[in-house]
């Protein structure tokens, strides 16, 4: 599922910076999502945090795009919710986690929702399956009448 990494040349640029993330920098940020403007805010916040973790340009775009898809689903289907982005640390590995959650209608059939082209709103139906392809880890749980939580993570190459 993972794509091959052909980006060695640019990677060096962010590395020094990432090692010196000042402790004052917030490592977890929550963005309330209620309108299409919040979608833009969420992806900008996520991109900025991922930049501090040391992700390079191509990965920043992947992460920002994934956040955009998740935040838009909140606005579209649940009206409101939140996106939380957070720095991950596992030994020497660093990454970023994005959790989108809402208390909307939930998804009756998650297996269908995860298929390319499945949309109940006339969309392309690529949001959820696309996010799964973009990120390294993907978990979704949804309960009809209670809401939806999508948790995804990307680790630095």
């Amino acid at each position, binding site marked *: 599922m993972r794509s091959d990494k052909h980006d060695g040349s640019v990677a060096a640029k962010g590395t020094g910076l990432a090692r010196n993330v000042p402790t004052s920098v917030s490592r977890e940020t929550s963005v309330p999502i209620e309108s*299409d403007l919040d*979608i833009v805010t969420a992806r900008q916040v996520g991109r900025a945090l991922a930049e501090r973790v040391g992700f390079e340009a191509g990965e920043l*775009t992947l992460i920002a*795009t994934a956040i*955009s898809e998740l935040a838009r689903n909140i606005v579209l289907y649940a009206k409101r919710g939140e996106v939380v982005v957070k720095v991950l640390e596992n030994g020497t590995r660093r990454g970023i986690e994005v959790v989108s959650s809402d208390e909307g209608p939930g998804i009756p059939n998650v297996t269908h929702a995860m298929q390319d082209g499945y949309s109940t709103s006339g969309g392309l139906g690529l949001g959820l399956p696309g996010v799964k392809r973009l990120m390294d880890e993907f978990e979704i749980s949804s309960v009809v009448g209670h809401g939806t939580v999508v948790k995804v993570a990307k680790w630095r190459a």
Partner: protein
Amino acid sequence: MEVPILKQGDYLIASIQSALSDSDLVQLRDALVEKVGRFRSRGVIVDVTVLDVMDSFSTRILRDLAHMIRLRGARTVIVGVQPEVAFTMVQLGLRLEGIATALDLEEGLAYLDETGEKES
């Protein structure tokens, strides 16, 4: 953020200046569809150079935009899709099938000039 639309001869050029919200993009689509008739334009260029994200929504709106402009009798070229954005779009499964694209504004104008000559 409203996108400025410039009229240059037979063409309309929309050069996106900053990140756009969904409604900004829908507004741009509607404005171009309207202006192409008002100015009797033959071609439309949408410059997306500054966009760092093109997701399923923006791709769908750009596709709709190009088809609507086509129905209005003009052609659309999307210019400036960044390499990282192209990479992400392909992974996401997004396609701009049937829509003309060019590297930058200059190439986009050249494309419209060429295809315009062939048609007339």
